[in-house]
């Protein structure tokens, strides 16, 4: 038997090691936030680490005055809000019927939905369908193809299946209509799973840019992430070699950092309130998934 004090060493080393992991994970964000509040002189001479040097808000002032990023942010908020409402409604509409074991044709219907997870038309056929429907350069091109995530639908379905059957039975004996049962009994009980899926869908919309890149053409309709990407792509002089973009477009390091901070702030703000829900959501999905 080893002495008690020494036997605890591995545990302490482990805890310190993990703390270091967390630090390395978050340091880049902290550094970027500090850069956004520092003077350009301090940034280019490499003095900024964990605190702002020569604190100023110049980068933010410039961004707000320019206004393009704000328009993009407004677009993203709009895309996210409408998108999430569509997602949640559609996910419930699919998950609720499929959670009822008495539903005739449940097996083949589930298979039809599951198959789309295994095999899907690629980027080009999807684009052509949206294009032939005349949706390109409207937000419908984002919302309609992304109405529902099959994975999230199965998460919600397994949650509905876990609700006790008797609740709905007694309500229907009392003469409640199917819609009333869904609205008054099932959905209020499903708040945790709805919260988790709202978070997943909202983060998805907020962060998405491939679909905007493909489907949206007008500059004033672009989302925050695409705008940010354009700013960053046009910022780094080194990355522009041979791409024929003039130096005039180069945005200073500090402004780039401020734009990044603006883009992640909303997520960091809602994160602490929702973190206990998403873990539940992930685990729920893994039970049947």
């Amino acid at each position, binding site marked *: 038997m080893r002495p008690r004090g020494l036997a605890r060493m591995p545990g302490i080393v482990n805890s310190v090691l993990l703390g270091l992991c967390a630090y390395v994970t978050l340091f880049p964000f902290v550094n970027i936030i500090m850069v956004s509040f520092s003077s350009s002189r301090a940034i280019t001479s490499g003095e900024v680490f964990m605190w702002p040097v020569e604190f100023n808000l110049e980068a933010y002032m410039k961004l707000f005055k320019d206004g393009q990023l704000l328009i993009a942010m407004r677009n993203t908020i709009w895309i996210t809000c409408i998108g999430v409402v569509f997602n949640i409604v559609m996910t419930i509409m699919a998950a609720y019927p499929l959670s009822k074991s008495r539903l005739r044709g449940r097996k083949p219907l589930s298979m039809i939905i599951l198959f789309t997870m295994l095999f899907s038309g690629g980027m080009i056929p999807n684009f052509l369908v949206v294009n032939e429907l005349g949706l390109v350069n409207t937000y419908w091109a984002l919302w309609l193809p992304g109405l529902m995530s099959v994975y999230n639908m199965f998460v919600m379905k397994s949650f509905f299946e876990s609700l006790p059957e008797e609740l709905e039975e007694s309500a229907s004996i009392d003469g409640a209509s199917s819609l009333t049962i869904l609205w008054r009994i099932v959905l209020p009980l499903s708040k945790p799973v709805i919260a988790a899926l709202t978070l997943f869908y909202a983060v998805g919309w907020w962060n998405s840019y491939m679909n905007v890149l493909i489907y949206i053409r007008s500059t004033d309709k672009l989302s925050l992430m*695409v705008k940010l990407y354009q700013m960053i792509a046009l910022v780094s002089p080194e990355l522009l070699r041979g791409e024929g973009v003039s130096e005039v477009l180069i945005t200073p390091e500090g402004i780039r950092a401020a734009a990044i901070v603006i883009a992640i702030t909303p997520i960091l703000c809602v994160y602490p309130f929702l973190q206990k829900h998403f873990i539940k959501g992930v685990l729920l999905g893994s039970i049947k998934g």
Partner: protein
Amino acid sequence: MRAVSQHKWWKALARDRFLYVLLAPVLVYLLIFKYLPIAGEMIAFKNYRLADGIFGSPWVGWAQFQKLFASQEFYTVLRNTIVLNMYQLVFVFPVPIVLAILLNEVRIEWYKRTLQNLLYIPHFISWVVLGSVVIALLSPSTGFVNFMLKAVGLDPVYFMASTTWWPVAFIASSIWKEAGFGTILYLAAMAGIDPTLYEAAKIDGARKLRQIWHVTLPGIRSTIAILLILQTGNMMDVGFEHIYALRNASVTSVSEVISTYVYTRGIVNLQYSYTAALGLFQSVVGLVLILSVNRLIKLLGERGLW
């Protein structure tokens, strides 16, 4: 007999008409935005013209595929896709497992929960943001990493423009984004391990490492198996947004993968049929892969995906 079963069907339809009404729009959605594009893959065998549409364009048989397999670019793109995925499998896939094992050993509950919540954060941040942070940190003129190199007397390295360092940055950013979040499923599986197994191992004189080897790892084996199937099923698909956020003109030879190539040649340069052929190739190989790995895992005695 037949009449009776038909009668039953009607009764079920009438009884659950509300449920079918709910399902109808879902089916319409799937038909238009999931199954129509699958049918639209037929343009890989056609010469797509905008004016004629998907169904009206003329058939050309395997011509697009012959053109594809004859082009040098196809092999570069295919190689990059497979190589980057192999790196993911070897260097990224095991990280959450190790991290989960370490987290599972933390006995102070609040410390463990705080660590978890902090480690999950990058998962919720967009690749554009993470990519630009990586580019900023590695910038040869103003990046933190190069300031550190200069401080110890080394020459600054232009990481993002080097074909050697770019894949390293790609892998590191993958770990940064997903390692923490990836621990959720493993930690849940570990929480389900019967504590008496650990007791028994202790009585047998097993130290911590042996306990992990003989109790913890077997306890999460089926979770590893399932995630491995999913990972392998993605072998033909490197995340478009991840690549797009990190790539630049200097490293195209290692960074161009199937999805980014389809985007540039198809959406930007309008070669729809040619890139649809590549997309179809990708989907079919992906499907075959996931079916065979699922089969293999089942043969090895684990529970598969279905």
